[in-house]
């Protein structure tokens, strides 16, 4: 089996290397064929693994492939841990990635950086696979950073654009903040567990549950809480939780396929996956769980609200991603790891679908992204419209669609949770449902219904996108509908994940819910009498009322609540705060250091001083290295005398 696992990881890498280094020789079509083949192989093998582990119930694999080095008794290895969680993740990742690859053929058709793009996205897939298949923190961190790096390259793919460079820099820097926490977390683990291997750490964790550490004298912290919160800070960076979310909306500067890849299957899910993978650690710290739940709740609600005021089609979808990530984090906080992963999976499908459909609209309108210049596209782009509608319904949790099951499970789990903060989180996610429905249908109505605001020239050339674009849409639409119904039972309430996810009995909300679970139909019927569904319907109704029935209402509301609108438009001021305090302060601090430290100390004393020193030294040395033989011989003799004298003097 090791070959299969290796094959899963290496096939995309192979494609990436070929397309990246030899793209010039194999040409455009060569590049997309080789990368698509790589990802397809990877997907096929993932399915095989999925079948073996989940359907046939084979034992999870955990082993090292290669020992990179051993230092101080700590092994640094490359190894795979393939259990139910991994098997699910690799299928999702490779499937969405494969769809994005195919879609890219159409979307990037005229781009000069065609080969480069394919190389990047294949590399991205490779990094994500390394991350999810890892059996130790070193490799996890490698995947983590590799994903960050490639996302940097991809967001700034159109590097001629000023805004793209700003966005990729922002993404990179914000992720650095998270990564610092993550790295510190790994360091604390290494310090106390003396290993990087998951299995060993999980085995030792319960024994260290009551350890405390002291960083500031006088304050004792629980070791597990410190580790978990540090790790979660890493997850906050990658999975874009408040206040480290600021990079994600800007990352829309990248080409649309990459938005789909980043937001659906790969980067942002890394944090969620990591927390689920670390469930044996997080379970030991209620503080960390509460913390996660609160952060998730704040993200889920506040980011959803922002979605209402955005006018860029991709940004609306981006804010919805943020909001949905908040839902997943809340689920993690409520110990409903399975719920979080379930939502991650359904979200991967419908969010990829929404992005790709949005991309299809953008192609049709010749790279116009402003929804105020769209409208009434329904008849021009039928396939796009219907798939987009499916994605939207799944997103808002329309009964029967995949999102319904996962979101409902999360809300229910929060309701059941007894951790501090669960009440507030419950309120937030409930309101979030209404908000989600509102902004989703606002988008749908503004783009596909109502009056057409497309300019005349573009309208003449409107036509449905080519098959390489629509096929992935359809392929993604199907799981967006059915995945929830198929997996809701086994994944949430039956022992789908086996030992991959660990939940303490007193936290196990899903088990509690499971006792009342009576099949898919029961779940749907039960959902119909629960408030979330009605909130969603209320959201749809509001959107219809405001944007179809009485399109003048939004302007009125906007002028009545100008302050609120401004706050939302400024995205709560996070960006301004970061720009003035962190970036501006950093610049001021940097200038100070530059003037005092660099110009005076480094340039003046060290650089020029060193240069002078070395100049002086070499002039002295030039006297020694005369080229005369007898000088050299003499130096040897002097060396000999000194070395002889040393033991005599020291005795």
């Amino acid at each position, binding site marked *: 089996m090791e070959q299969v696992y290796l094959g899963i990881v290496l096939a995309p890498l192979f494609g990436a290397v070929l397309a990246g280094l030899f793209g010039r020789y194999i040409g455009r079509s060569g590049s997309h064929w080789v990368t698509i083949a790589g990802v397809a192989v990877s997907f096929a093998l993932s399915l095989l693994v999925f079948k073996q582990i989940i359907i046939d119930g084979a034992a999870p694999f955990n082993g090292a492939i290669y020992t990179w080095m051993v230092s101080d008794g700590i092994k640094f290895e490359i190894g795979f841990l393939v259990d139910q969680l991994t098997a699910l993740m690799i299928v999702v990742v490779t499937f969405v990635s494969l769809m994005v690859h195919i879609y890219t053929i159409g979307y990037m058709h005229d781009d000069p950086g065609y080969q480069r793009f394919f190389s990047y996205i294949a590399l991205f897939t490779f990094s994500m696979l390394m991350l999810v298949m890892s059996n130790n923190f070193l490799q996890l961190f490698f995947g983590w950073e590799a994903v960050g790096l490639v996302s940097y390259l991809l967001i700034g793919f159109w590097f001629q654009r000023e805004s793209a460079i700003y966005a990729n820099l922002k993404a990179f820097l914000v992720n650095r903040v998270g990564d610092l926490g993550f790295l510190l977390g790994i360091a604390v683990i290494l310090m106390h567990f003396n290993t990087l291997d998951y299995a060993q750490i999980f085995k030792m964790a319960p024994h260290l549950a009551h350890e405390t550490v002291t960083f500031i004298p006088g304050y004792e912290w629980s070791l597990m809480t410190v580790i978990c919160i540090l790790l979660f800070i890493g997850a906050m960076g990658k999975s874009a939780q408040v206040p480290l979310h600021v990079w994600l909306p800007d990352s829309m500067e990248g080409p649309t396929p990459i938005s789909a890849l980043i937001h659906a299957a790969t980067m942002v899910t890394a944090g969620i996956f990591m927390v689920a993978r670390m469930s044996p650690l997080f379970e030991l710290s209620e503080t960390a769980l509460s913390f996660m739940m609160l952060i998730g709740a704040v993200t889920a609600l506040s980011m959803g609200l922002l979605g209402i005021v955005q006018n860029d089609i991709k940004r609306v979808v981006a804010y919805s991603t943020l909001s949905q990530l908040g839902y997943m984090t809340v689920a993690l906080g409520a110990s409903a790891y399975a719920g979080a992963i379930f939502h991650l999976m359904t979200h991967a499908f419908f969010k990829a679908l929404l992005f790709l459909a949005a991309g299809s609209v953008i192609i049709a309108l010749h790279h116009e992204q402003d929804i105020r210049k769209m409208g009434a596209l329904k008849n021009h782009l039928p396939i796009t419209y219907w798939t987009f509608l499916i994605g939207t319904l799944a997103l808002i949790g329309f009964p029967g669609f995949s999102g319904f099951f996962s979101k409902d499970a999360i809300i229910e789990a929060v309701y059941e949770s007894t951790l501090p903060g669960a009440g507030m989180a419950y309120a937030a996610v409930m309101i979030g449902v209404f908000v989600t429905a509102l902004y989703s249908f606002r988008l749908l109505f503004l783009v596909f219904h109502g009056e057409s605001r497309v300019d005349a020239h573009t309208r003449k050339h409107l036509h449905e996108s080519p098959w390489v674009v629509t096929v992935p849409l359809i392929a993604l639409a199907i799981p967006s509908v059915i995945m929830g119904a198929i997996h809701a039972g086994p994944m949430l309430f039956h022992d789908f994940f086996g030992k991959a996810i660990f939940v303490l009995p007193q936290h196990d909300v899903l088990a509690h819910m499971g006792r009342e679970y009576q099949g898919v139909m029961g779940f749907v019927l039960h959902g119909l009498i629960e408030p979330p569904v009605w909130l969603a319907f209320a959201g749809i109704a509001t959107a219809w009322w405001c944007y179809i029935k009485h399109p003048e209402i939004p302007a009125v509301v906007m002028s009545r609540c100008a302050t609120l609108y401004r706050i939302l438009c400024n995205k709560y001021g996070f960006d301004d705060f970061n720009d003035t305090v962190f970036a501006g302060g950093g610049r001021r601090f940097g200038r100070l250091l530059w003037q005092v430290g660099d110009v005076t100390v480094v340039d003046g004393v060290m650089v020029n001083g060193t240069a002078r020193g070395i100049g002086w030294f070499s002039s002295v040395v030039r006297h020694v290295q005369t080229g005369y033989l007898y000088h050299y011989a003499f130096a040897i003799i002097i060396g000999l005398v000194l070395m002889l004298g040393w033991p*005599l003097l020291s005795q």
Partner: protein
Amino acid sequence: MEHIIFYIFSAILVLSALMVITVRNPVHAALFLVLAFFTSAALWLLLEAEFLALILVLVYVGAVMVLFLFVVMMLDINLTVLREGFTSYLPVGALIATLILIEMALVVGPEHFGLDSVAAPVPHTAGYSNTQALGNVLYTVYVYPFEIAGVILLVAIIGAIALTLRRRPQTKYQDPSQQVLVRSKDRVRIIKMPSEKKRGGA
């Protein structure tokens, strides 16, 4: 008695070695070196190492030094040029030399290598042959070092030949085979010319 002979020869050895590096005339220096070899051969004789002593005289004095003398005489080196820096380097050199001397005296002095710390070797019986003893071990126990020493000599020969054997374009040399193979027409070219009448008178 042995002590007295030892000290006499040692004194001559040290003095002649000193002369080798101080006398002005290179021929004299070479000759002092010969003297040094002779005295050390005498010291070896005292140690009953007759074979080595004789080899030293035969090889070094008889072959190496004679060759050396030839070279020195033929090259006519102007030593005054070589000695120009001598006085300016003398103080430093003397200091280092003294230091080494002190350090060496501390180590190889009588307390470590004196007569009482190293037992005197037992004299051999009359029939003992130094040469035979060497011959017995040279090709048996020490065959490996001996062979390598042979290889070193081979390399020395190769090196010497490679570095000296070369054709300078301006060097004049004979090639007998070419001389033998030469044919008359290579040397004399007979050109037929129509006879010309004497023009005019004298």
